[in-house]
């Protein structure tokens, strides 16, 4: 729910409740006041009537109507212990042929040893009419007021929160591939200024950290690879010495290949660190089929030497948003792995469907738990020098992009599948 919608909803709900409760109270108060007024009038009339009745000498039947209200007098035996002074009553109006609301006042008079019950009635029609009108006016005013307040609120809302929405937009556009320290204009609201200032500081820090990390990995590579370059070049020079014995040549050769191994290891570890620290941020839409074709061409020669037949089955051509460098590493390592852990005259099948890539290759069953397959440095074959680091790179990349990766072994076939969704 949007901020405006949510606050408006609260505002409207509370307003409607408060205003209608207020309107209802006003209605009740006015009604009460009106009845009080009628009762006061009735009491006044009672005084006059009782006075007059006492002064009357003649028969009661000749009594005249004193006010606009109605008076009923009847003879009773005695005054009841308790009785209601005021009550409401409905009387049929003959002229208009409908019920009219009256307020009635009952009292008793003693005259010539007789008890008379006197009832004075007063129509509430006028009062009700007034109350009705007042209620109508109050209700329409409430509606009018709500509507006005709503639009004023909406206007002020956009005015007050505009700085906030600007800030939000800037944060959303913040991108580390073209890092720019956030910079907000001065806002008239202290809290927003505070947030903006904090965000400016934070963005600066993020950019610094990011660049620092990038610099660090680059420097680390540089610092390690440079001495390795020296060792490698010196060994290569030793290898050129024609006076060396076969034994010495072999020693130099071992140093040489170990240096290559070490250099590749550093390269891969740096790569893993870079992936773990999200240093590959540029992404583009990559046609996986095209990428596979490109790399299969690179592997053509090698697979030919090993007598491995590579077939491709394309059901559909997924386009995946991924960093191009990582995409290359992913595909190369998958195919390289399938070639390396294959058998003589084996086969590799590359299956590409909507959002899934399967690499199926013939090969011997793993002699360890497949769960550690993707762990750094786990080896398929312990006799080989190579570190099983290729698959851990594959896994890291899949984790980075939330691709699901699965492995299973069936009918002497290894099946590695990656789900790009």
């Amino acid at each position, binding site marked *: 729910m949007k901020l405006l919608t949510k606050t408006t909803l609260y505002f409207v709900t509370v307003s409607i409740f408060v205003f209608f409760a207020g309107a209802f109270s006003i209605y009740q108060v006015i009604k009460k006041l009106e009845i009080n007024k009628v009762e006061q009038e009735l009491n006044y009339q009672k005084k006059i009537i009782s006075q007059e009745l006492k002064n009357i000498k003649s028969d009661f039947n000749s009594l005249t109507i004193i006010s606009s209200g109605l008076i009923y007098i009847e003879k009773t035996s005695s005054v009841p212990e308790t009785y209601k002074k005021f009550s409401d009553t409905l009387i049929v109006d003959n002229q208009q042929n409908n019920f009219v609301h009256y307020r009635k006042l009952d009292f008793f008079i003693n005259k010539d040893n007789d008890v008379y019950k006197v009832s004075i009635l007063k129509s509430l029609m006028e009062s009700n009419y007034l109350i009705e009108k007042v209620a109508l006016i109050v209700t329409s005013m409430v509606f009018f007021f709500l509507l006005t307040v709503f639009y004023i609120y909406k206007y002020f809302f956009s005015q007050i929160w505009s700085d906030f929405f600007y800030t939000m937009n800037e944060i959303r556009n913040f991108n580390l591939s073209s890092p720019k320290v956030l910079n907000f204009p001065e806002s008239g609201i202290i809290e927003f200024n505070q947030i903006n200032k904090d965000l400016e500081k934070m963005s600066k820090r993020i950019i610094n950290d990011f660049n620092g990390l990038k610099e660090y990995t680059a420097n680390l590579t540089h610092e390690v690879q*440079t001495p*390795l370059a020296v060792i490698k070049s010196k060994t*290569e*020079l030793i*290898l*050129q010495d024609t006076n060396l014995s076969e034994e010495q040549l072999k020693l130099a*050769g071992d140093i040489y290949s170990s*240096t*290559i191994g070490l250099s590749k290891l550093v390269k891969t570890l740096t790569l893993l660190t870079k992936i773990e620290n999200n240093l590959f941020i540029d992404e583009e839409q990559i046609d996986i089929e095209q990428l596979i074709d490109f790399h299969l061409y690179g592997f053509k020669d090698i697979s030919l030497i090993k007598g491995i037949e590579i077939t491709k089955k394309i059901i559909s051509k997924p386009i995946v948003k991924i960093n191009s460098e990582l995409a290359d590493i992913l595909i190369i390592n998958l195919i390289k792995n399938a070639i390396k852990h294959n058998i003589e005259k084996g086969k590799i099948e590359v299956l590409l469907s909507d959002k899934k890539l399967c690499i199926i290759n013939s090969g011997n069953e793993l002699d360890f738990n497949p769960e550690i397959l993707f762990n750094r440095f786990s080896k398929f074959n312990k006799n080989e*020098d190579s570190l099983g680091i290729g698959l851990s790179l594959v896994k890291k990349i899949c984790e980075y992009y939330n691709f699901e990766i699965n492995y299973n072994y069936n009918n002497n076939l290894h099946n590695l599948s990656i789900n790009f969704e």
Partner: protein
Amino acid sequence: MKLLIVEDQKSLSDSIVSYLKIEGNLCETAFNFESAVEKISLYKYDCILVDINLPDGNGFEIIRKIKLEKILCGIIIISARDTVDDRIKGLETGADDYIVKPFDMAELNARIKSLIRRINFSGENIIQIGKITIFPEQFQVKVNNDFIDLTKKEYDLLMFLVSNINRVVTKETIAEHLWGDYVDMSDSFDFVYSHMKNLRKKLQEKGLIDYIKTIYGLGYKFNIID
């Protein structure tokens, strides 16, 4: 050939000089930005090797200067930085090639030769080694005046060996040169051996025996026996 090596790591610079001067190349060195710039403006070189990280400056600046003053020479960047961004930046600045540390001397040597061949476009480039004649522009090889039929990889392999004539070239270097990232180093020997066998056979058919000598467990050496 006259080469300038701009590299602050003196021991690495020394190795490069030792390796390259065997063939009679004239190598000069610069250990910092200032002396590199000075040498470039004073002397003429066929090829310049530039390291990017220098104590008193940036290798890219040297390349920009060369391009600005329209000095005609090959430029190869030698750097430990191997991100795609660095490579692109290097080539965009005007370098002809980019080689990542730690590199193989044989690879560097082959790249320098290939670059020099590309630059010296005038006149036909023919490489004559003993009874072998190579026509680099046509990717063709003649032995005793007969063309021999080589696959692309066999041709690359022969070129690589010829570029590093009389040197021991390790199987790892050959594998890296031929297949780059596509080859797993632990398998390299099989792959190199397979191609080497075919190349040898094709040379032997034309009467060239023992041009390629196997250094057991290490690699190969190409030499001329006449």
